């Protein structure tokens, strides 16, 4: 058994009676309430305690409990959970109540996991620091003067502080992987389509992914397996094979791992010297074990960031067009319907969200769609083709998560372009729809494989953990 699995530790403690589920849940909720990290938009105390009591009764009666039964988790406040608030950390939806439950969350509930908290994040996923939120900035788990990362900042901090056993984040261009790195926990963006997006507030539908944040690889494996699968609510979902726990015990075969890294990510004037040095140190340790690590050519990071943002902004402008105050959300009243729309949208969106909606509207309009949007689609195809050819040469790509260390709170909002460029190492893999895991080694390391190769990533991550 993997000893660092929080889920298995809780499961065993509940089973043996050394821990009551009600005490566990009350303790976690109390810790979130006392914390100054500002991770919680809404606490789900009443429901969580009721569910915990049911688990305790089951154990008292001598009934078997499932691995996730009674295990507390958090969910980014962009997921629907029937009867509870779903604000997207926005002023617009601050009083909105979910009419239904997201598929991924329903699967966790069906497995008996207990939701504790709707977690603070960047508004509608628009940000890389969790400062663009109606609920105030989230503070980093390791140093409260630093940002939590984003957009799933509250989720990563809750996991790092031990307030939740695991949390469910959302990743469009790095929103799970970057906060996971900034708070030194694991975060997986699965293959696009592996986990249903039904019930996740749409940011950019073609790269939006649901994924877990946890403190161990075993926990990432367990949660990914539970949430995966085809879903009639999301036509882009795909079949996938469950990841076996044997990947953590079996010996790696000779030449099972063949790694590559992108030279353009590392030999770049924007990367901090320490991140570059640590990365090359890690490559040295891997090579010393006889594993081949190839240097690969790739796109310029500015092209990756710009392509991603052009496409993401176009999609978010379309997705957020529904937020006009007609049938839900905060409506402001003007002289007539056009005025109502304009007042409602102008007053309720943050500057960053407005910037992205306006940019997306611009890029889809006359004079821009041919030269910019269609060109970005061409670049997207080239990026995807390049990944296909790279994965015929290597089976894993290793990279840092960000070019810079964690910024101070307040630093990034002054320069939006700088914030966009900080996503340089994460957005490319989102465009490829590829599974990518952040490991909390040093400033954070990303491991990427071909589609549906999550098992290979987790196996290598476990190996890497043993050699560093």
């Amino acid at each position, binding site marked *: 058994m993997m000893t660092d699995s929080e889920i298995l530790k809780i499961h065993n403690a509940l089973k043996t009676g050394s821990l009551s589920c009600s005490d566990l849940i009350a303790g976690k909720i109390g810790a979130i309430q006392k914390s100054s990290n500002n991770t919680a938009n809404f606490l789900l105390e009443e429901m969580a305690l009721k569910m915990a009591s049911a688990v305790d009764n089951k154990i008292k009666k001598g009934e078997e409990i499932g691995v996730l039964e009674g295990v507390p988790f958090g969910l980014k406040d962009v997921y629907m959970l*029937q*009867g509870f608030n779903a604000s997207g950390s926005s002023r617009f939806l601050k009083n*909105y*109540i979910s*009419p239904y439950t997201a598929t991924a969350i329903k699967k966790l509930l069906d497995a008996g996991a207990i939701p504790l908290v709707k977690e603070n994040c960047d508004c509608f996923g628009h940000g890389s620091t969790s400062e663009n939120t109606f609920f105030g900035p989230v503070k980093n788990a390791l140093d409260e003067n630093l940002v939590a990362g984003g957009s799933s900042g509250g989720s990563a901090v809750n996991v790092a502080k031990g307030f939740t056993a695991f949390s469910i984040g959302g990743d469009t261009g790095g929103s799970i992987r970057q906060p996971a790195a900034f708070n030194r926990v694991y975060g997986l963006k699965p293959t*696009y389509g592996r986990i249903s997006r039904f019930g996740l507030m749409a940011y950019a539908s*073609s790269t939006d992914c649901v994924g877990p944040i946890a403190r161990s690889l075993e926990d990432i494996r367990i949660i990914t397996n539970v949430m995966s699968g085809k879903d*009639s609510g999301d*036509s*882009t979902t795909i079949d996938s094979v469950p990841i076996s726990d044997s990947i953590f015990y079996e010996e790696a075969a000779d030449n099972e791992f063949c790694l590559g890294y992108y030279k353009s990510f590392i030999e770049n004037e924007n990367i901090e010297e320490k991140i570059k040095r640590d990365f090359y140190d890690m490559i040295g340790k891997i090579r010393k074990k006889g594993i081949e690590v190839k240097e690969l050519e790739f796109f*310029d990071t*500015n*092209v990756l*960031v*710009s*392509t991603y*943002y*052009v496409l993401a902004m176009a999609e978010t*402008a379309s997705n957020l*067009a529904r937020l*006009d*105050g*007609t*049938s*839900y959300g*905060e*409506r402001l009243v003007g*002289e*007539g*319907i056009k005025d*109502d729309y*304009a007042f409602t*949208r102008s007053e309720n*969106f943050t500057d960053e969200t*407005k*910037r992205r*909606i*306006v*940019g997306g*509207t*611009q*890029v889809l*309009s*006359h004079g821009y769609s041919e030269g*910019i949007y*269609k*060109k970005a689609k*061409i*670049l997207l*195809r*080239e990026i*995807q*083709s390049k*990944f296909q050819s790279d994965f015929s040469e290597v089976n894993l790509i290793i990279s840092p998560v960000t070019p810079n260390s964690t910024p101070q709170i307040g630093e990034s909002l002054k*320069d*939006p*372009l700088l914030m*966009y460029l900080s996503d340089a190492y994460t957005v490319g893999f989102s465009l490829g*729809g590829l599974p990518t895991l952040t490991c909390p080694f040093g400033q954070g390391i990303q491991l990427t494989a071909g*589609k549906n190769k999550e098992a290979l990533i987790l196996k290598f991550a476990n190996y890497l953990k043993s050699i560093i």
Partner: protein
Amino acid sequence: MSKIMPLEVLSGIKGARPSQSIDELFDVVSKASSHDSTDMPVRIDEGNINVTVEKLRDDVIIESTNQEKDLIKRNFPREKNGFLVVSKVVER
């Protein structure tokens, strides 16, 4: 009247104007070299996320539960004397 609608109307955001940060992203895309062509057919393979027509779900009506219906009504922004109030659409 110009057929080109201003950004403010298209985005539904008062005072909407282009941002310098975003213009810089556009500039990078427009100048990026590419070898591909728009005439290239869209691939339906594992490198592509497009969903084929055969894989789309059946176009069926799924009745919402009473709880869902109640929550949808509860989310409506304005209500008066039991009626859901919409924006004024008739212009004089």
